[in-house]
């Protein structure tokens, strides 16, 4: 009678191991990072990335892919720095309308059986276009409440960590503990059986996209809270980072197999990779490249663990 480890635990083990290894390496290189201030600095920019990653996760859960994530987060950041700052009600309305557009996008993709890659690709032009119209040059200002929320200093644990835990918990509850979450993951698993069981795949897809839009809007707001200004290209790299974060966190492209906690950890790992390399005194030129390399290493590790898992089952 051997000890059986659930598959999901193994899936989560890789991102946790990767994050711990990086964190230990950072602490070893720079012991002063092992403090309240140090941790806050290390993970501060991870909050918007984590939110964007979670948003991408909802799309991946229904077997789609959002190539407009970076453009949309930039758009949300521009709205936050302009309308949400000057006339909060109008700003909130615009952001709510943008979430509605996301829901509609999900519905149309489902109804007409369109490839999500192409539709979101087209939408990325639209979001960037609107963002350029809103803020032709970098500028704007962060609403005071956003700024104070993002720079808050809770006792004992830095804000960035608190925020990451809250994001992971909330999305875990939505996706793993509510009936809507189950429905969303079921659509990713097998759309036909969802429809035959009397549920509406259309509703599930629209809901998944609406949730993605909501979290992407939050990512934009959080980003402006940190940077205090915005421009139309501020978050373009989030498209790739968010996809990488979900996969790093144990998510799969098909089958509705995603892990909210893993996704947040994946995003933290990618954010930490940057700090790790600057502590190693590796030139900033190599920062993006190293993120790619870390991703490759983690995926290789996962392949290795999957193989172990299969061998155990077989034997």
């Amino acid at each position: 009678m051997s000890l059986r480890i659930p598959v999901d635990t193994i899936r989560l083990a890789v991102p946790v191991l990767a994050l711990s290894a990086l964190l230990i390496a950072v602490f070893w290189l720079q012991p002063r990072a092992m403090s309240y201030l140090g941790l806050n600095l290390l993970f501060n920019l991870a909050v918007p990335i984590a939110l964007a990653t979670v948003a991408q996760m909802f799309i991946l859960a229904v077997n789609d892919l959002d190539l407009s994530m970076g453009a949309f987060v930039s758009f949300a950041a521009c709205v936050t720095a302009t309308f949400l700052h000057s006339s909060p009600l109008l700003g909130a309305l615009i952001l709510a309308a943008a979430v509605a557009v996301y829901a509609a996008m999900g519905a149309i993709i489902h109804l007409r059986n369109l490839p999500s890659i192409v539709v979101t690709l087209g939408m990325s032009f639209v979001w960037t276009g609107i963002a350029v119209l809103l803020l032709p040059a970098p500028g704007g200002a962060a609403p005071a409440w956003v700024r104070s929320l993002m720079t808050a200093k809770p006792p004992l644990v830095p804000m960035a960590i608190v925020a990451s835990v809250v994001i992971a918990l909330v999305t875990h509850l939505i996706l793993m503990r509510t009936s809507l979450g189950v429905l969303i993951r079921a659509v990713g698993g097998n759309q036909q059986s969802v429809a035959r069981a009397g549920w509406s795949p259309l509703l599930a897809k629209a809901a998944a996209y609406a949730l993605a839009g909501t979290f992407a809007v939050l990512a934009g707001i959080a980003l402006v809270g940190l940077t205090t200004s915005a421009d139309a290209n501020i978050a373009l790299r989030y498209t790739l980072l968010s996809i990488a974060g979900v996969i790093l966190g144990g998510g799969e492209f098909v089958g509705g197999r995603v892990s909210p906690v893993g996704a947040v950890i994946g995003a933290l790992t990618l954010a930490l990779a940057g700090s790790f390399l600057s502590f190693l005194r590796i030139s900033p030129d190599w920062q993006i490249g190293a993120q790619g390399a870390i991703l490759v290493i983690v995926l290789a590790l996962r392949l290795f663990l999957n193989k172990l898992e299969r061998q155990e089952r077989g034997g």
Partner: protein
Amino acid sequence: MSALASLTRKPWIWSFVAAGLVWLVTVLFTGGASALGLTLAALTFSSFAIIVGTGQMLVITLGPGNIDLSVPATMTLAGTLALKFMAVDNSLILPGLLVAIAIGLAVGSVNYGLIKLLRIPPIIATLCMSFIVQSTAIWSNRGLRIKPPPALAEFATSGPFGIANVALVALLITIIAWIFLERSIYGRWITSIGQSMAAARMAGVPVDGARFLTYVICAVLASIAGYLLASFSGGAALNMGAEYLLMSIAVVVIGGTSVAGGFSNVPGIWGASLFMFLVVSMLNTYGLGAGFRMIMTGIIIIAVILLASRRNTSLT
């Protein structure tokens, strides 16, 4: 009449019809003054999208999930390193091209190596690769703008009867791609893989070899496009490939190639690339700014894919 009917059934015809309409509207707006200039400019500026799009089309033909996200990084790295290697020396133009092609071969090989060895989806493999390639480009470029050798710059920006040489290169590449796809066993292989990888494997198609070759061809075409673009625009810049990620996918889709794979379409790449350029110049002649231009581009891509989906459902 039946000839016309069979013509309307070709999936690529719509991109040419759309391009023609946009051309007509733009020329009418300017009172016909710019007809020739617009045509020549469209041929010149679309040629880069055509070269990159052809490679992306081959990859997309391989089936769902196959897409090469490393295209822009490869273009940048190839343009940067080739120009650096040539060091404004006319005698090194051909070796410089070989440097660019070698970079394409390397990136393509590693791309497929990652896909195969790590068993990860092509999107993630090419994404990781694009991070690494982009970093290499940043490291080697250091923000400098390296000039191309004068003879190469002259070649890229001029040509017979005002038709730029780059457009002729693009034509040559697409003709070769068409022959490969329609008249060679390789074309049959990747089409069958795109329709059903399992069936192709059982039928004895060398699936891994064909997929490997496709990713390599895509990367090589991207590096040739980067080499030409850097020479055409007077130097390599770090962001020079950026717009070609979305562009390469957009021209494939608008050109009538199935996003689900298994059906490719070479002429459509031309129609779609011309269309994309003409739309931008049409909006420019109306005096609309960059923001509106992007919004319109996005709406057009979505409208085309919506129309295409309607066409497919009516057929079945």
